[in-house]
């Protein structure tokens, strides 16, 4: 369990960075609660819709944008280069770097889903699609973070380079909310199948497999692409 020492170090680094605390810890919670308040006030977008948007927000802020920034910072500090020669296998290094953000997403989603369920008139008909949405969404966001970090030469540039990925996640969710129903081409936008899974908790008849398949395909594609383009040391 040597990789846990890396998880601990990354967690410390996350909590010691004021920027990361605001962006990855506080922002998703504030935006999530804000969306819920708006949905309850207007009577639109509550329940499954609120959960979907909340999940995409927290995936976008923590395991995607937060991890992209952290990876760019570790590469810039030459920590990633050094990690390549430690006793951990590559997969354990990746897991160690991503685990704090995954943990954060799980805790944040528990808080926000709990609030959404408590605030709405109807609690989710089934909880497991929410768990599946988080479990599938976190690896997808993490893989997108590695792919995006490949094109992020410095941590401060992450604010720019994460915009397309953030739009693909959050914009996809908004698209789904606005559409009559998801189609297969729509599911190519990463936010769509993740939002579809979250909404399924409030729609007992909604099928889960199409969205889950889409998330798996998108995650595999993002992992493959990241494996191809990710650099462990700065370009000289």
């Amino acid at each position, binding site marked *: 369990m040597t990789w846990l*020492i*890396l998880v601990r170090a990354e967690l*410390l680094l996350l909590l010691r960075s004021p920027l990361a605390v605001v962006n990855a810890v506080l922002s998703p919670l504030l935006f999530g609660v804000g969306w819920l308040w708006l949905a309850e006030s207007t009577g639109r977008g509550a329940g499954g819709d609120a959960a979907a948007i909340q999940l995409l927000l927290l995936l976008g802020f923590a395991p995607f944008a937060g991890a992209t920034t952290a990876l760019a910072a570790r590469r810039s*500090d*030459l920590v990633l*280069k050094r*990690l390549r020669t*430690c*006793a951990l296998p590559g997969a354990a290094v990746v897991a160690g770097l991503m685990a704090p953000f995954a943990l954060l997403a799980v805790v944040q989603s528990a808080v926000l889903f709990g609030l959404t369920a408590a605030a709405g008139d109807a609690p989710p008909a089934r909880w497991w699609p929410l768990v599946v949405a988080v479990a599938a969404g976190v690896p997808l966001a993490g893989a997108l973070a590695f792919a995006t970090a490949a094109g992020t030469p410095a941590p401060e540039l992450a604010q720019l380079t994460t915009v397309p990925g953030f739009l693909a996640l959050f914009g996809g969710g908004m698209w789904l909310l606005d559409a009559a129903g998801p189609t297969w081409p729509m599911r190519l936008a990463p936010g769509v199948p993740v939002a579809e899974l979250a909404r399924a908790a409030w729609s007992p008849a909604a099928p889960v497999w199409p969205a889950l398949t889409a998330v798996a395909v998108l995650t595999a594609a993002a992992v493959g692409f990241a494996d191809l383009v990710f650099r462990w040391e700065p370009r000289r």
Partner: protein
Amino acid sequence: MTDNVLTARDLRCRYGAFEAVRGAGFTVRRGELLCLLGTNGAGKTTVLDVLRGHRRPTGGAVRVLGLDPARHRRRLAPAVGVVPQDPGFAGALTVAETCELWVRLRGLRPDAGAPAEVGLDHRLTVPVRQLSGGERRRLDLAIALAGHPAALLLDEPTAGLDPQSRERAWELIRARCAAGAAVLLTTHALDEVEALADRIVLLRAGRVVAAGTPAEVTAGRPHRIVCAVPARLRDRPPPALAGAVAWRATAGPGAELTVTTPAPAADLDALRAWAAPAGLARVAVTPPSVGDLLREVPA
């Protein structure tokens, strides 16, 4: 069981079209310190990167404790201490946290005494970003020495250290060597070579151009005689010498004469006879050094 801990045979390493290492070979035995020398870009760091398993060679073979370091990185990590050229620390972690992290990532148990060994025990709670360059180098050395590894790969380990810290680092490295560790060290500091090296390997453009003990690689190379001569001799040519003569004007009335010679005793006698009766002043005869060798090797 062989005593060879680090072995490189016909090692080649290429970055795109550029071949950084072109057939380098050497061994480092238990308890031996080998200095890898060369100008910037000679291929020293690339050789170390291959030995630490960070890079795969494009040709030849390397073995660390009999294993291929690229394939057996995890197995070798506890047995190989590395001071990389660039530190690679996260600035927000403290000295103690950084030391524990990287020692454990080498597959070792935390070594609370490691920072004290390099004189960082009073900086344990300080974030690494607040350390000076020399202190970061010492932290690197502490991590490398933890667990008494069988091999040490040290890429300019004393760069940026103050004289006292350098002496302390040399003592630590010598002690580990005496305890049986095989040490491969790169440096540009000639006093470090003289203080530590059992053998040297000199690289030029990725090729080994000289190898052996400092005495072996400088054997047969010329001595240097430097002396001040009286003003009246400036216009009289010196006698025929075995070595080459060079004059340098000085602030005073005399001049400085340098003779680079393979026969220092005979040439010194000839110079003394030539300068009689006033004689030579400030005579210094310098034997050949590794520094001379390095200066003569073009980049």
